[in-house]
């Protein structure tokens, strides 16, 4: 009986010949990642010293710290947090990635998405490294374990296999694929399990698009998502890889808790209606609903294909007067390329507000909504108060739908603009 890619990665990380779903093991993460955030990294750094008497992490090359929230800062206190982070990284010899973009994306760009590696973070959106055959798990506060000892305790998760077939129709994007998975499989369909994506349909999706899907895995209850990396993904990840590891893949006779088939050609653009990521509807049902603001960005979306389609839709058109469209490329690398290709000037000329990468739009720290306002957003989450007042609303959708809605000031079907 074969093994899943997850079992293979965890067996190696645990130094065991093999492990099976359900085994409780101690595994050594190849990389330990975190962004600085009050109550998380500042607390870990303090606890390491004061509670565990650890002055320095043992293998600094295993760690990576990101400054992507509170960028730019708005208060001296926020700058104080970043100062503490810079100091800790310097003292520990740990590489700091500041203002390079949203950490989960930058992590892939700088080689933490090493195929076959086991990566931990406190934030679950690190699951997107699964695009490259990397097992990225968000441990919430338990990631402290990875700061004070070599190994972390983990129960080897079962795997749910999701096979994608067919190809997406125009105006339908990878975001819609994820939301559709939640719709048909349910918000608890992969609880405590790994969502493994496969099938011929993957070939028609871009690497960026797969990252949109794997990023959001937590809203199916999954611990993470992963893909058996094909040549396209390996060609991107291997030259950047920070560690020499043999890429692994699931065996054909691996055991899955469930296997599902999703036909991509059946999908339409989707909106996720507040207040939960489980409220998935066809966008056409909500077309015409008045919206005041739009956000195109986040660790889930905001990559080149998202910016490209928005530019295509907005070229020669205008954002409706009174509507605030924020376009925030996910990383500096992406932003520079979008500028080279002319997408940024198209968007600016159409009336969009374009800013350098930051996580801050996604959780309402800036571009904050007041009560009774509504947003269309490619952010990660639509719970109450996520982008401002608890009495504002977030409709999650793909980048094309955000751009189309910006033209009309109402939720709009992007297909008529393509």
């Amino acid at each position, binding site marked *: 009986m074969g093994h899943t890619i997850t079992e293979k990665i965890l067996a190696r990380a645990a130094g065991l010949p093999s492990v099976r779903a359900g085994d409780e093991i101690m595994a050594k993460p190849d990389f330990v990642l975190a962004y600085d955030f009050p109550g998380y990294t500042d607390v870990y750094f303090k606890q390491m010293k004061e*509670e565990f008497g650890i002055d320095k992490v043992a293998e600094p090359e295993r760690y990576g710290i990101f400054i992507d929230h509170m960028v730019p800062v708005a208060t001296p206190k926020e700058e104080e947090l970043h100062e503490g982070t810079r100091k800790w990284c310097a003292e520990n010899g740990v590489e700091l990635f500041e203002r390079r973009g949203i950490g989960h994306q930058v992590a892939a760009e700088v080689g933490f998405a090493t195929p076959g590696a086991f990566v931990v973070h406190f934030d679950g959106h690190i699951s997107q490294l699964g695009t490259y055959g990397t097992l990225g798990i*968000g441990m919430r506060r*338990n990631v402290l374990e990875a700061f*004070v000892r070599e190994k972390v305790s983990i129960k080897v998760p079962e795997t749910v296999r999701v096979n994608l077939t067919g190809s997406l129709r125009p105006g339908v994007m990878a975001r819609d694929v994820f939301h559709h998975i939640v719709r048909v499989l349910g*918000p608890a369909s992969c609880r405590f399990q790994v969502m493994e994506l496969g099938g011929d349909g993957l070939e028609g999706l871009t690497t960026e698009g797969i990252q949109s899907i794997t990023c959001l895995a937590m809203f199916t209850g999954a611990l993470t998502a992963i893909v058996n990396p094909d040549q396209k993904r390996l060609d991107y990840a291997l030259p950047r890889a920070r560690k020499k590891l043999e890429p692994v893949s699931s065996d054909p006779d691996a055991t899955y808790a469930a296997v599902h088939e999703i036909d991509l050609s059946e999908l339409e653009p989707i909106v996720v209606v507040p207040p939960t990521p489980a409220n998935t509807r066809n966008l056409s049902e909500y077309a015409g609903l008045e919206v005041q603001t739009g956000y195109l960005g986040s660790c889930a979306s905001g990559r080149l294909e998202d910016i490209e389609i928005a530019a295509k839709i907005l070229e020669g058109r205008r954002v409706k007067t009174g509507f605030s469209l924020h376009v925030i490329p996910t990383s500096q690398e992406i932003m520079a390329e979008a500028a080279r290709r002319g997408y940024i000037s198209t968007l600016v000329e159409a009336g969009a507000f374009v800013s350098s990468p930051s996580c801050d739009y996604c959780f309402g720290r800036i571009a904050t909504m007041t009560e009774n306002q509504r947003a269309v957003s490619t952010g990660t989450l639509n719970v109450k108060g996520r982008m401002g007042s608890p009495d504002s609303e977030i409709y999650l959708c793909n980048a094309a739908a955000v751009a189309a809605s910006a033209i009309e000031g109402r939720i709009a079907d992007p297909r008529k603009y393509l």
Partner: protein
Amino acid sequence: MALQNLKGRVAFIFEEDDFDVDQIVGVKNIKIQDVDELAALAMTSYDPDFSKEVRKGDVIVGGRNFGYGHPHYPPMKALRHLGIAGVLAESFSPGYWRGEISMGFPQCSCPGIRAAVKRWDEIEVDWPAGVVRNLTQGTEIPFEPLAHSDALMLEAGGLLPYLKMNPAG
């Protein structure tokens, strides 16, 4: 050291699946740090008299995928401050589960619990026996065993004491 059994009344049943725990204090209050202030707000939209009725050792019961969404820590801090000793649910969302286990707050995944209890029933979670007893109705149902590391973390009283007690890993 063994994990202490939970014994108390069912102080409230959240019937819905995918329950977002932030609702317990209300999203607009989620950034409040002061635990007395949070406790005064907790559950008021479900039962205005909750804080008067609840007793130390009482438990909360939930549905499937309890803790779905983007769970924050303040709601459960508030409930613990009011005396709630643990949560039993049909099943849990992993992010919520990890967060609360790391706080040393007992969580018990017990399929069938929603139908097996009524509000204010006296129940017992017997960890070694692996069952939840409804002492009021004289019935019992099994729960899903805790992972070894989760049990150790609860016994230790949370993540920090757990890591200190098991320094070698």
